[in-house]
């Protein structure tokens, strides 16, 4: 991890301003929801684990769920000076780490997390301009506030910027 980079843990979220950057390590079935405002250069990153806070009674940690985490992220970004109408999103993660052939919903949590993330961003009118989701491997991501570039690093599956 580079110095000055803010670490976002599992079921956690944070926001920063240029020249800052945010990172979260080893996204598996979780999703890294990255949102940025290209003009004010405010960026936010959430590491969500589950699709829907309403489906679960133990939902006090807002950063754990796609719906509540995204809402909180936007709120925090606006507070830092972002304009809600300019926000753009990129998402990464949502892998299926274990190749269970079953159609068991629990085992497809990665896909469900991705769908839920898309749905909540659509609801908030934030366009998704890039995604790197699915497959069966982990991803470490870095979000840079200056231009919203989203660096994705993997073990054995290359590195790319979306």
């Amino acid at each position, binding site marked *: 991890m580079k110095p000055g980079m803010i670490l976002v843990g*599992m079921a956690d979220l944070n926001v920063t301003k240029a020249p800052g950057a945010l990172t979260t*390590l080893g*996204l*598996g079935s979780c999703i890294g929801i990255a949102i940025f405002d290209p003009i004010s250069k405010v960026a936010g990153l959430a590491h969500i*684990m589950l699709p829907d806070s309403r489906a679960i009674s133990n939902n006090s940690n807002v950063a754990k769920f796609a719906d509540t985490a995204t809402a909180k992220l936007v709120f925090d970004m606006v507070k830092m000076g972002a304009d809600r109408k300019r926000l753009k999103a990129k998402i990464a993660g949502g892998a299926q780490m274990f190749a269970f052939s*079953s159609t068991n919903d629990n*085992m497809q949590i990665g896909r469900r997390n991705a769908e839920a993330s898309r749905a909540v961003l659509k609801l908030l009118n934030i366009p998704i301009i890039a995604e790197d989701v699915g497959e069966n491997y*982990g991803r470490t991501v870095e979000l840079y506030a200056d231009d919203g570039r989203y660096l994705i690093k993997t073990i054995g599956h290359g590195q790319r910027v979306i």
Partner: protein
Amino acid sequence: MKDKKIDSIVEEHVDILKEIASIGCGNAVTALSSLLNRRVKMSVPVVNMLDFKDVSNCIGGAENIIAGVLVGLSGDINGIMMFIVDEDIAHRFVDMLLGKPTEPHDGFSEIEYSALTEVGNILTSSYLSSLASLTRTTINQSVPQLSIDMANAILSVPAIEFGKVGDKVLFIESVFETDTENVSGYFILVPDMPSFEVIFKSLGVM
């Protein structure tokens, strides 16, 4: 029960879970010993309820490469169980099993991959058979699946499963010792909420 958070219920009864872990790991070590055809000793397993954000710190950090063997549980107890080892230790397990000298190498061949899956399968199933007989329940185990990747990515699977009921995960560390080396492996047991009730009720604590 319904209103009480699973974290606090589990914390109250952590001694029982420790005892189960100890017996389960003991059984697993016996199986490992006959699998490797050498003496294997085990220290008393360390059982912790950890915040899931801290789990990866116990196994070398979020981006450390680990091997995880995952099995699904069904029957009286539903949930998942996982056996985890560091990549280097996974190599040593496989080399011992295949009777090869241990030398550093990258990646796993197909035979090594299935050997490692089998190690995980045998260890988890011997652990689970102890749990089943202690709780007088029937536990069916799915076909094991192996994944080798960043620790956080692999741990996200049990963390998500447990994240539905709590913010902590039951983490069991056991150190195995053979004649020549120490290898530590980890078990993560994630029963769903009703299964916790089944376990505690069958042990007479609820």
